[in-house]
């Protein structure tokens, strides 16, 4: 029950009432419908057949028996008699048919079958009767009457029919009793249901109201606590209904607020501590500013010396560069010469190989010639000698060619080696030259750099003095900051958030102690700005330096 939302319990109550009403009305409706059905049966199955049965019975007695009698008495003509009889028969049949179609009880059906049998018998008689009438046979008719042929069949029929009529009435009575009973039962159940429903509704609503009241009461207590600034009591027993949710959010809010308050508390403590540190730091700052100013002057004089040496350096570098470039050019020229030499050597080698070929061919020619000469015998002798000489010459030129070839080969190789070495050398020298060039450029850069440094140092001095002034101002501001942080702490201490509450007091005391100490210091050592002019060697200000 606790967890069901209020709206839900209200929905349930309303739904319950609706169901109750619906049940009630449907109960009443079925009862009424039942009664109607009974009444309808009573009328159609009992009262109307009553009439029909009566007409049948009447037709037999009045129509046929009477008519026969009247015929015998000549009260009516034959024709008329016949008409009456046929009409009676028709009526009997009509009514009987209608009746037989109504709903019948078992007893009724037994009776009806009996009537049916009698009716057939009666019909035979009636047909006979009709024939007699047709023949206008008075005697026959008479005879029939006398023999009781007619009455013997019609009387039991009539009895049976009366029996049926009676039965109708009995059944109707039974039905009425039935309806009466029904009505009494209906009344009883109706009143019972109404009373039960009312009782139930009352109980249900009482429960709902109670639970809502309980919750609201709890919430109110919690919110009251919060308004008192007490954040220590947590909100418990959170149920899931609307009130529960409300309390839930409220709890989240208190947690968050608790955190914020704690943060504010610790920050303001921090601020207070920082303010103290700040004021001591700004004091140190003003002290170091003075030291800086004196160092700056020394720097300035060293820079001057450096500038002059840089200039000298740059000059030397430039000279070196020129020399290196010249060397590189020379080597390059030398290199191309070596290449040419190598090429010439190669050409020589080529040509020499041709000479070698020629020598080879000459040798072969000489051999051929020698062979020819030898073949020619005595006549060829002189020629053979020449051929041999030529062969020797060829051999010698071949050897010479081979030597030259070898020499030129070595030459080419040497040339190529030196070419290779020189080629390697040139980029090195070039590299040196470019490095030296870079040095020159760097020196120049340095020169202008040192000038810039000087001016920068000047600027630096000014800035240092400004810094000293600023640091004093800063100290004041720091003190103010500390006091404001204290105020803040005081304000925040209204909230009881449970934790940190123990440190509150000692911290505050510490702060106030420090504050006092610092105030004394600041009073004592108030720094004075120093005006440094580095370019003019400020000997006049040396005294001031000494003071620090």
């Amino acid at each position, binding site marked *: 029950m606790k967890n069901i939302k209020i709206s839900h319990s209200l929905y349930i109550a309303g739904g319950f009432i609706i169901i109750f009403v619906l049940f009630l009305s449907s109960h009443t409706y079925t009862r009424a419908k039942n009664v109607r059905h009974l009444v309808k049966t009573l009328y159609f199955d009992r009262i109307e057949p009553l009439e029909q049965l009566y007409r049948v019975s009447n037709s037999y007695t009045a129509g046929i028996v009477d008519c026969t009698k009247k015929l015998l008495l000549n009260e009516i003509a034959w024709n008329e008699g016949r008409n009456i009889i046929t009409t009676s028969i028709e009526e009997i049949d009509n009514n009987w048919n209608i009746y037989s179609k109504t709903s019948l009880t078992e007893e009724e059906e037994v009776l009806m079958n009996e009537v049916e049998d009698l009716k057939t018998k009666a019909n035979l008689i009636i047909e006979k009767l009709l024939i007699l009438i047709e023949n206008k046979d008075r005697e026959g008719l008479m005879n029939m009457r006398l023999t009781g042929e007619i009455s013997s069949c019609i009387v039991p029929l009539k009895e049976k029919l009366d029996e049926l009529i009676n039965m109708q009435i009995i059944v109707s009575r039974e039905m009425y009793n039935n309806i009466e009973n029904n009505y009494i039962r209906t009344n009883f159940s109706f009143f019972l249901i109404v009373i039960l429903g009312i009782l139930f509704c009352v109980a249900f609503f009482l429960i709902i109201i109670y639970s809502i009241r309980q919750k609201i009461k709890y919430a109110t207590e919690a919110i009251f606590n919060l308004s008192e600034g007490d954040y220590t009591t947590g909100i418990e027993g959170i149920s899931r209904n609307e009130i529960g949710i409300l309390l839930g959010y409220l709890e989240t809010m208190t947690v968050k607020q608790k955190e914020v308050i704690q943060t504010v508390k610790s920050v303001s403590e921090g601020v207070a501590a920082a303010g103290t540190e700040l004021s001591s730091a700004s004091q140190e700052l003003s002290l170091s500013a003075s030291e800086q100013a004196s160092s700056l002057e020394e720097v300035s004089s060293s820079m001057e010396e450096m500038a002059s040496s840089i200039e000298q350096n740059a000059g030397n570098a430039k000279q070196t560069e020129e020399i290196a470039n010249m060397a590189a050019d020379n080597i390059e020229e030398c290199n191309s010469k070596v290449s040419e030499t190598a090429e010439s050597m190669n050409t020589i080698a080529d040509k020499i190989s041709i000479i*070698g070929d020629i020598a*080879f*061919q000459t*040798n*072969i020619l000489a*051999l*051929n010639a*020698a*062979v020819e*000469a*030898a*073949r020619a*015998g005595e006549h060829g002798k002189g020629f*053979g000698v020449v*051929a*041999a000489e030529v*062969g020797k010459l060829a051999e010698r030129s071949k050897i010479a060619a081979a030597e030259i070839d070898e020499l030129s080969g070595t030459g080419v190789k040497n040339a190529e080696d030196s070419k290779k070495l020189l080629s390697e050398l040139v980029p090195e020298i070039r590299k040196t030259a470019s490095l030296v060039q870079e040095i020159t450029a760097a020196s120049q850069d340095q020169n202008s750099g040192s000038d810039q440094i000087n001016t920068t140092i000047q600027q630096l001095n000014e800035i240092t003095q400004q810094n000293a002034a600023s640091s004093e101002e800063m100290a004041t501001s720091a003190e103010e900051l500390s006091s404001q942080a204290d105020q803040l702490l005081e304000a925040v201490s209204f909230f009881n958030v449970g934790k940190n509450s123990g440190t509150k007091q000692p911290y505050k005391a510490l702060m106030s102690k420090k504050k006092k100490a610092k105030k004394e210091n600041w009073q004592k050592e108030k720094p004075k700005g120093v005006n440094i002019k580095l370019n003019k060697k400020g000997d006049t200000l040396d005294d001031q330096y000494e003071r620090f």
Partner: protein
Amino acid sequence: MDEKQKANQNSYLTFRLGKELFAADVRYVLHILPVPEITEVPNSTDYMKGVINHGGKVLPVVDTRVKFNMPQVEKTKNTCIIVVEINSNNDTINVGAVVDSVHDVLEISDEQIQPQPGIGSKYQSEFIDGMIKEKDEFIILLNMNKVFSAEEVDTIVKTPETGNQKPETKNQES
């Protein structure tokens, strides 16, 4: 050496094969050529190197190294072909002989020619006409008709176990 009616001096062309120096009677020598492109003739005896175009004629060329059972070597600048004219089967035929280098034409008198020592000689005696000693070196005088004959010669070298291996003929067919 069927006609020795001429004085007792004869000219010989010396040439080298490997380390050995050989001499050929110049009467058989027609010409000395640098080695041209040689067209191989498939399925011929292995000492037949092929044919060359010699002045518009097709000249068969003998690989003399193979004939003398020496290992084959790469052609050098000094490699030459000696065109010889020999008698084979009563027919004068021309044939080229590949040699490592051609040296000289020497005048040699018959007295200088020594017979081939029967024992300790490398070559079958029928191919050698004699030996000549010239400047501390023995020159082997060849019987050109025999050495370059068109008839199939089994082996010139005496030791047959290192003899010519027949060329692998046809390992054809699957």
